[in-house]
């Protein structure tokens, strides 16, 4: 029996963008896309793709669908999960969807899943590196009325259930969850694989399946925000570092300790 897995993946600005290139247009409250740094699939979402692929590696018959909601998709970025080995890419692509809040995103994802489903597992990232809300995957479980386990670092199929490891502050819990369930995946799962040449070739031939809002029976009225962005800005830092310089590095180390004592810090 094929296990159908949907992985929720968001296109985000590359979080490795050097701070000097991270700029905001304060008149529109938006991030100015840095020159020459293309967007990427959110890192934790690639961890989720990896989690699904590891199930396949372990011998399960899985079909992996990557689902994304947004606008201005950059296909080189969005096809990476396909190149890694995912089977399908489903995009809900509509102008304006790049700027909706998490409550609205959940509505669109739920509608898309209902149209494209049914699924056995829904995997999302623990949080998206643009707005850092860590909300969408958890909210989707609520809306779909499905069991939810967050911060999963290990995942195994076990008949009609899944065996999981869930990260907690000082270690992990082992958990058994039924299928279907919604899981959020965290980077402790391990690095996600690099696409190989064959994967890249296959992905280049695949076309995404695209829905508009209207295809899902939604209109922009359904997406009224609960949070309104009033101001987006880069905080000013007025910190001035005091560099400790000795005759050599060993001397600097000694002087640092003495300086901290002088300040009564140690």
């Amino acid at each position: 029996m094929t296990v159908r897995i949907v992985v929720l993946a968001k296109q985000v600005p590359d979080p490795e963008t050097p701070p000097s290139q991270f700029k905001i247009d304060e008149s529109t409250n938006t991030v100015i896309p840095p020159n020459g740094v293309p967007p990427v699939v959110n890192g934790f979402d690639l961890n989720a793709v990896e989690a699904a692929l590891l199930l396949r590696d372990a011998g399960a018959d899985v079909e992996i669908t990557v689902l994304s909601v947004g606008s201005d998709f950059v296909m080189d970025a969005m096809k990476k999960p396909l190149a890694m080995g995912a089977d399908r890419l489903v995009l809900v692509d509509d102008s304006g969807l790049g700027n909706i809040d998490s409550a609205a995103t959940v509505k669109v994802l739920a509608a898309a899943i209902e149209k494209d489903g049914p699924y056995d597992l829904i995997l999302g990232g623990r949080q998206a590196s643009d707005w850092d809300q860590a909300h969408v995957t958890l909210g989707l479980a609520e809306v779909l009325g499905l069991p939810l386990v967050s911060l999963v670092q290990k995942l195994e199929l076990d008949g009609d259930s899944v065996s999981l490891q869930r990260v907690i502050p000082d270690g992990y819990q082992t958990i058994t969850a039924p299928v279907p369930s919604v899981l959020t995946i965290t980077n402790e799962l391990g690095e996600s694989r690099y696409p190989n040449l064959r994967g890249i070739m296959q992905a280049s031939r695949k076309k995404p399946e695209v829905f508009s809002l209207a295809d899902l029976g939604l209109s922009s009225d359904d997406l009224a925000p609960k949070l309104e962005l009033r101001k987006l800005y880069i905080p000013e830092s007025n910190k001035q570092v005091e560099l400790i310089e000795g005759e050599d590095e060993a001397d600097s180390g000694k002087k640092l300790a003495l300086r901290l004592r002088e300040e009564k810090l140690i």
Partner: protein
Amino acid sequence: MTSILLVAERDEQGEISQSTVQAIAAANGLVDSVVTAAIAGEAPASASALAVEKVVTLSSIDDADLGIYDQATAEISALVESTSPEVVIFSKSDFGSVVGARLAFRSDSAFAADCIEISNAGDGVSVTRPVYGGSALAEFDIVSSRAIITLRAGAYETNTETGSPSIEAFESGVNVEQTASVTGTVAEAREGVRLEDANFVVSGGRGLGGPEPFSVLTDLANALGGAVGASRAACDAGWIDHSHQVGLTGKSVSPDVYIAVGISGASQHMAGCSSSRAIVAINKDADSNIFKEARFGIVGDWEKVLPSFLATVRELKA
């Protein structure tokens, strides 16, 4: 605004946590509001002196729910339905992040995670939260009749204000059947002080080059009576357990002194340590971002700097 519900948490001793006391300070800063604190299980001794009007105990939430939080979500949703608070505040803990997010959808409320400020804005509230990994700050107006907020540790002072709240029990009668079940817990053994509570934190990053140097960091932490932290890069490399990770998706620490060794100071790392009293950076790259955040720094190779630093610390402590 008329009423705020604050969901309290416990520390290791079972008493009200520091982060909850900080959340009370945030709540009391929103004028004219009646603050109720809810806590799972029996009220600990420290609950009777909290600076709130009322403490509500939720006895249906027990340890079996830890990590799954189905019962907690149901019970707190029921409490919210019966008391209709305009604002519900959680700590940005594992519990608060999951229950808060779920509650927002169950009660059709706005959700704002990891906030550093909550303020009145006209009839409603607005919040400030770091976004883009901490590279930017965003101010949001809540346009919903109810806001569910999680508050970052250290965002507000732990003040010593006290009160004499009434203590009541709440029971909705709802008993959800657990959808998933916890079959075991594997915890990292810890020696010495908890990272989150430490007055001194010595953290290592990718610049350490491997797992062995963490033993030098441990020696230094021991000499200072502190704890060892790490960047995500060091944890992901497997050099040290993830339970040591400091940052946006790791632990929040606010020690007197935070010593960052071979850490570049990415915004996502700083998100977990920027409320430290003094940050000390040891990094061989003078252009590294950590020097923009630090109060003291040495531009140099940690291998040459640390031995004499450790030796001098030991002399001073002797």
